[in-house]
């Protein structure tokens, strides 16, 4: 009997705690913001930019520790700089786009 009573009290507390957000008065902030197509696009561009910038830093380390020769280093640096610049250019173009 006591066990059933204790269990009932626990269940009541749980139901109140879980149901409270649903029964309290609604507010303006109850709607979750959507993740838009524009955000996805810009995030992908920022990732592309950061990947290229990260790769440039890594190349620097690889060059300093003699894992990569001067010729390859120069070529790869130019390539990653171009990629980062392209991503930044596209990001700038995205400003003012809807979404």
């Amino acid at each position, binding site marked *: 009997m006591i066990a059933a009573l204790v269990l009932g009290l626990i269940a009541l507390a749980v139901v109140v705690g879980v149901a409270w957000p649903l029964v309290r008065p609604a507010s303006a902030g109850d709607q*979750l913001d*959507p993740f838009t197509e524009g955000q996805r696009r810009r*995030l992908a561009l920022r990732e592309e930019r950061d*990947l290229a910038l990260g790769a440039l830093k890594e190349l620097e*380390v690889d060059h300093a520790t003699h894992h990569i020769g001067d010729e*390859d280093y120069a070529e790869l640096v130019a390539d990653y700089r171009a990629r980062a610049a392209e991503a930044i250019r596209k990001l700038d173009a995205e400003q003012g786009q809807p979404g």
Partner: protein
Amino acid sequence: MALIGQGALILALLLAIYAAAGGLFAGLGRDRRFLTSARNALWAILALVVIADAIFLYAIFTHDFSFKVVADTTSRSLPAGYMFTAWWGSQAGSLLLWVTILGAFSLLALRATRRALGELQPWLIMVLALIGAFFLVLLVVPASPFVTQLAPADGLGLNPSLQNPYMAIHPPALYLGYVGLAIPFALAMAAMIAGRTDARWLVASRRWTLASWGFLGIGMLLGSHWAYTEVGWGGFWAWDPVENAALMPWLVATAFLHSVMVQERKGMLKVWNICLISGAFALSIFGTFLTRSGILSSIHAFVSTNIGWYFVFALAAVLGGAFGLILWRLPLLKADQRIESLVSREATFLFNNLLLVGLAFAVLWGVIFPLLTEAVGSVRETVSTPFYVFFVVAFGIPLLFLMGVGPLIAWRRASLKQLRRSFLWPVAAGLIAGGVMIGFGLDSSWPGVAAGSVCAFVTVTILSEFVRGVAARRSIHGENWLVALLHLIGRNRRRYGGYIVHLGVILFVIGAIGSSAYETRAEGLLKPGQSLTVGSNVLTFTGVEKTRGPNFVERGAVLNVTSDGSNLGTLKPAKRSYLREQTTSNEVAIRTTLTGGDLFIILDGIRGDGAVQIKAFYKPVVGLLWIAGFFFVGGVILCVWPDEREARRILRRYAEEPLPGES
């Protein structure tokens, strides 16, 4: 009490189903109220499971044998320390521990991803709640810890093999690993449902995977040490299905931890990474299934206990769900770049991945082969150690080699001139090591010579990485050697933490090969006064000694050990008879030498006339296995330790693009 415990679990199950539905509604309807409600449900589940834990432990400590599980796994004579470990000594208790850890981890994961991955929260709650619901169904229906009976006067006792201090840490460490893999899996699934396939979920899941992988590794090492010192079969790894159950997800998670670097840096292998993380979690479920379904004793036990079907369903849901989501999100998972050259770091990681996954599949085949043969025919055919050793050698040595190659090759591509320069010293070290091993007569095992040679190659590679890094810092920043080393490690924790783990792997491999391929063994029936020689050690049997413990009687063979004429003391391998449990365990005697080798003695039997059957081994460099553990733990801690610079960089990226999240 049992009623409250069972009621708490039923309530937790209902809440888990509700939380999954709440997450779904919150995700589809973009409704924050459902999100908060579902999150509260997860908190309530943890509270209810903790109540169930407390009741279960109270029953164990008060010898309440009206709880069937308590009566089956404890006794009045069980030492107090092992009363706690009896928690995970039973199927129901270990599943209860699973759910408790999952509850705590779920809330931690939600907390950690609240800001940067707010969009994922509803789906994360849904996936985690579904996983929790599965285990709660097991606890409520087929494996309840709260089944009661008419209390017997005493319990049956705990399996003597589990009455060992290692059992206090080994199973919980494995469980932390198994359960921890649920979080990266849930993050991957939530990211795909939400369409957030950018690298953020990967960064969030990487640390969880590392920690889980670390716990699995520590759990396996502790289990190996336990098997070595307690079980008394004369080794540290027996390719037992329960050991393999932990090894398989560990291997796949190892592959993920390497390939994740390729995705982070190159935007490649996105689908592959999701497959790996799903595979690692599915294998952790499979591991729990293997150890908890009764299938290992017999396929018929699996059918009769019916808990196995629940696991089959869960495995199908995990793999089917992951496959379906990958197909749905395939357009978002296209690689940003391609592998340009087979001689590049990303290609090395890819080969490493193929070998790791291949090895995991070989182990999986070895595990399921007996089950398949029994299911198809009537006779169970098993694969034995040579099967596994073949694959470990065939896949392991190339893997070791790649461990040395990876750091020496730059991303994207490497020139021949650069390769010559980078590989000169490591290759020379490998060849010299191989030559020295042959010179010392160690060519009795060619895999041993090959592995030793590759180990030298990798060690020089790793050490040269530290030297080059420090030299570069010294020339750029003008630091002294020590400061340069500390800064080098501190500012590149993942990279150098990884190297430290690799050094641990090398030590482990040397210890494993030394203690197995080059061990010496001897066996004999000894009467008092007679001797047995193993290596340079002479064991002289002087008599049998009997002692009493709290719940056992021990009979040990006293052996006087001498080597090259000098007395090294006595060793006493023993057999321990547990009174209540009515079983016997081996207590091996081990003497560790200064060179890290072990004199390892097993008492196989005691005859009525006082003669003893002794098995003795000398295992060179076996101590390196355990030293490797410290490297492993140190390296993992370095890798897991939060990297503030990385956190700042990511926060900057997301600060530019305010995303749906919560403050």
